[in-house]
């Protein structure tokens, strides 16, 4: 394998991110940068109570205020469809999940702090806000259901009166295995049990959400500009299910997007509202979320409470695993909410291990909180955290070495069919662990521990493995599992007459560096310079119908479509070259942008062939069409399975409970790597978010009132640069994916999935090294929590 930096262009080169030129010089074009002549502004009046009956919403005084164009309430949307959920989960009895209506504006009831009650459209934002204050809302507050255990209790207040209870579904996976799993536990030599919380997070992309609706009466054309990771998904969901707009009359544009992390996948009320209101008011309508609104309206992430049990035999082999999880859905089902704790979580419960029997139970609960949905990793971090914490705990209980216990139970033969429905195609878990031991300098740890001790600090080393599933597919399988969408992607390669190329992709780049990495692939295949290729994305009127970017799918799925389309281009170009060279196309070779006839010195350049395609004077018109443009749709036959091993070293200050991360090492297997620098950057960012979850971030509600306690950065702790160490990351262990043409696996979420368990394992190790027998602390491991754990040990 070549070292980073050795390859200068094409696949494997650390080409600099070309998009950063505009991002770093203030020349990005974000949704909020777009202003349309005559636009009006909307301000949403949001609920300040968690649960209540809306007796009346009187807008008469507000409507007479200066600048007001129109005021909308829930009644205006009665005829409009609710915000749909994109995944139907079937419960363990074969019944469909309970699916409440999710109105654009609250009607009859409010169900979480921040739910929009009314929307004021006015000439200026300040006027809209002034008028919103004049709206008289008469509501009767109801008890709020916040804690999932309370929500589950018999007789609990119901979030939705028309549902039988607060239970969305009770999912068993694999239900048929339950008996065998229970039996294995009865026969176990040792059982480790752990109850843990996967803390609720707020995604906090740097750019808050924005939506602008525009409508042209002349041709009945709607345009929505929105901060989305997947413009076609929004067009489909909003057009077809919410507003009933034919797709050819609806264009969705997602220009530069300043980070998504999952929370910009979903279709939100504000998008539907602006699209609807633009037509109703016959004016463009713009909404820009404030940070405070973002905290109470962007879908949150995680929020699971789990009991996990691991059974081992007398030789420390894992014999069975079972889990019980309560998963918070919030007040309504966000777009992919139902799939996260089920198919994106249960299917990963084998981890990197050959545990033969696994049973996963998930009860999804409605509560009076902001909806919860996918956030970087989505389900897989929850799975990884449970598995890797319970293994660490088992190792401690058994006095086993945590690395050896893991190694002993690794899956080593591939393909490997897990007992939780998925089949891993490739992997080499020993290789990544070997690499981790090297870059993490495990042998030097004891010396470092002593150095810390001499300073009055306790040092701990925590490790974990992870496996994730990216590029979720194939569409027919996920359809059987309840997905209400396909999960292919698409690319159109348009070669211009002079040989430069525009590639229209269904994936959306919002920080991932597609504009740099995707051209590297095409450049490599044809043998021309990367600068000759541009990526076009984020506009449904320009790109083929693709499913967007999430779940680390872009390169594995959309990149594969791009490869297929480029292959078609090359095949056609070879025919044109064969004509120009008066040879058979089977004898034509393409290398470094030159077509040549094998075994001769006859050749023609890429640019001559592309020119011939568009100026077809000397051209086999009777055999092939002019032009050089091809589209491919790609539907993967399986997920990809990136995996790796992470290590974290912490120092704990026993007097204050403060945790400092001293070292962090990550050895990942992403299969083939297109741009190593971008991959490292993705891992760095992912680890920052994982460390954020482990040590700092925790979204918290008052359990009585349902008020959001962490509604701003004064109380919600984001990781900052000085909370993080310099990382050692490595992705030289590569077992290429066997079923996509690039052999790539996806790297976008790994850091966030792989890092929380090693941080927590390290803190627990540090406390033990200080003589404190602490079994577990729930994330985030704030100084207060760590100090309390030390004190109570």
């Amino acid at each position, binding site marked *: 394998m070549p070292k980073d930096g050795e390859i200068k262009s094409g696949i494997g080169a650390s080409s600099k991110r070309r998009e950063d030129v505009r991002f770093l010089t203030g020349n990005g074009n974000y949704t909020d940068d777009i202003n349309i002549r005559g636009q009006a502004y909307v301000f949403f009046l949001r609920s300040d109570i968690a649960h209540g009956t809306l007796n009346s919403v009187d807008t008469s005084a507000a409507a007479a205020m200066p600048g007001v164009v129109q005021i909308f309430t829930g009644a205006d949307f009665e005829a409009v469809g609710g915000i749909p959920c994109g995944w139907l989960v079937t419960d363990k009895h074969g019944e469909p999940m309970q699916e409440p209506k999710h109105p654009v504006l609250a009607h009859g009831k409010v169900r979480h702090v921040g739910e929009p009650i009314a929307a004021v459209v006015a000439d200026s934002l*300040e006027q809209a*806000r002034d008028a919103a*204050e004049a709206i008289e809302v008469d509501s009767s507050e109801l008890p709020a259901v916040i804690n999932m255990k309370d929500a589950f209790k018999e007789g609990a207040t119901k979030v939705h009166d028309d549902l039988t209870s607060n239970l969305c579904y009770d999912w068993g996976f694999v239900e048929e295995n339950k008996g065998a799993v229970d039996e294995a536990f009865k026969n176990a030599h040792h059982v480790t049990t752990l109850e843990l919380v996967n803390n609720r997070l707020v995604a906090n992309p740097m750019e808050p959400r924005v939506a602008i609706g525009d409508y042209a009466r002349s041709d009945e054309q709607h345009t929505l500009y929105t901060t989305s990771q997947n413009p076609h998904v929004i067009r489909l969901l909003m057009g077809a299910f919410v507003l009933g707009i034919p797709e050819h009359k609806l264009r969705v544009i997602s220009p530069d997007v300043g980070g998504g992390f999952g929370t910009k996948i979903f279709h939100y009320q504000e998008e539907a509202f602006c699209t609807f209101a633009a037509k109703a008011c016959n004016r463009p309508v713009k909404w820009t979320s404030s940070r*405070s609104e973002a905290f109470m309206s962007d879908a949150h992430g995680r929020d699971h409470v789990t009991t996990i049990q691991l059974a081992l035999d007398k030789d420390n082999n894992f014999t069975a695993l079972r889990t019980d999880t309560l998963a918070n859905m919030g007040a309504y089902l966000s777009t992919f909410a139902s799939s996260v704790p089920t198919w994106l979580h249960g299917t990963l419960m084998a981890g990197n291990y050959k545990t033969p029997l696994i049973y996963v139970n998930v009860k999804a609960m409605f509560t009076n909180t902001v909806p919860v949905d996918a956030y970087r990793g989505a389900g897989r971090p929850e799975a990884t955290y449970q598995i890797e914490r319970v293994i660490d705990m088992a190792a401690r209980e058994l006095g086993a070495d945590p690395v050896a216990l893991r190694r002993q139970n690794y899956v080593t033969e591939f393909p490997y069919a897990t007992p939780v429905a998925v089949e891993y195609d490739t992997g080499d878990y020993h290789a990544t662990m070997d690499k981790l031991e090297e870059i993490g300098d495990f042998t030097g740890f004891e010396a470092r521990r002593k150095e810390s001790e001499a300073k009055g600090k306790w040092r701990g080393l925590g490790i974990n493995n992870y496996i994730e599933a990216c590029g979720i597919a194939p569409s027919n399988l996920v359809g059987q599992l309840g997905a209400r969408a396909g999960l292919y992607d698409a690319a159109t390669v348009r070669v211009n007459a002079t040989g430069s190329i525009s590639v229209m992709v269904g994936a959306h780049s919002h920080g991932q560096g597609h504009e740099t990495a995707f051209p590297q692939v095409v450049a490599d295949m044809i043998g021309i310079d990367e600068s000759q290729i541009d990526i076009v994305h984020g506009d449904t009127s320009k790109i083929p119908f693709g499913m967007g970017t999430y779940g680390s799918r872009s390169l594995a799925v959309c990149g594969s479509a791009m490869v297929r389309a480029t292959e078609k281009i090359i095949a056609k170009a070879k025919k044109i070259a064969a004509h120009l060279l008066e040879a058979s196309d089977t004898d034509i070779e393409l290398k470094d942008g030159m077509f040549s006839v094998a075994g001769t010195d006859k050749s023609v350049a890429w640019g001559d062939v592309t020119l011939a395609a568009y100026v077809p004077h000397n051209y086999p018109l009777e055999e092939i069409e002019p032009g050089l443009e091809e589209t491919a749709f790609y539907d993967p036959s399986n997920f990809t399975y990136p995996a790796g091993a992470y290590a974290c070293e912490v120092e704990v200050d026993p*007097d*204050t*409970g*403060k945790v400092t991360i001293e070292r962090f090492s990550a050895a990942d297997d992403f299969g083939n790597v297109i741009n190593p620098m971008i991959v490292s950057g993705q891992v760095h960012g992912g680890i920052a978010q994982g460390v954020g979850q482990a*040590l*700092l971030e925790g979204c*918290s509600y008052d359990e009585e009132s349902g008020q959001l*306690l*962490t509604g701003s*950065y*004064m*109380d*919600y*702790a*984001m990781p900052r640069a000085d909370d993080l160490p310099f990382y050692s990351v490595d992705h030289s262990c590569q077992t290429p994916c066997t079923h996509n043409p690039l052999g790539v696996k996806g790297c976008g979420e790994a850091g966030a999935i792989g890092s929380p368990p090693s941080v927590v394992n390290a803190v627990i190790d540090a406390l033990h090294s200080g003589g404190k027998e602490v079994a577990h602390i729930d994330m985030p491991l*704030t*100084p*207060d929590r760590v*100090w*309390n754990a030390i004190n109570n040990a």
Partner: protein
Amino acid sequence: MYNFEFEKPSSIADAVAALGGDEAQALGGGQTLIPTLKQRLASPTTLVSLSNIPEMQGICTGDDGALCIGGSTTHGAVASGAGAYLGLAALAGHIGDPAVRNRGTIGGSLANNDPSACYPAAALASGATLVTNTREIAADDYFLGMFETALEEGEIVTEVRFPIPEVSHYEKFVQPASRFALVGVMVAKFADGVRVAITGASEEGVFRWAEAEAALSANFSSDALDGLTLDADNMIGDLHGSKEYRAHLCGVIAKRAVAKAA
């Protein structure tokens, strides 16, 4: 933000006159007030900026040797210009981030008296004098509780006079989200005794820890604080730390402040 009139006087007298108007409010660096206005939690009719008043700017040494800091002096200016009182300069240099330090002012911070703010600990531990447009107020009489001070309506802090201790240190244990003080302890050793002021911890705002002062006046070393504890009852208990935790931290952080005092 609601609409308001904006005045930018160039003398204390003009500022005071402007503040006499109905619902007028002083604007220092705006680092607390502007976010409050943006959230529409305050609605002054007039904002009177204090940032253009030369009499309220800068740092000098008074006849009695005290360090005199104009009420509109920014945290950044104190961080770089209060070399005569290193403990204070270091405190100012760790308030917020550079943007906050370039705008926020000492007068604004002391007028606001946030229970987690840093300057109140310095003023109280130094036995500072707050000079206003009408009078001088000893720090011991100035802080009246969370967000409460002895200032009257329309009264502005024009200068703060800090006696310079022999050695001092402000140790701040940050609240992880805001990075204000979860507990901040200022220790100042003068010829006639030691003063210890604690911010961030108490429901009554910044306070002096009398037992610690007595112990340290007798023996200025962190060991002198061994065994001293504070009652958790009056402590702030919230998401970021329980009452007990804060009470405990006061002792730990005070010891560290003493150990680092220079």
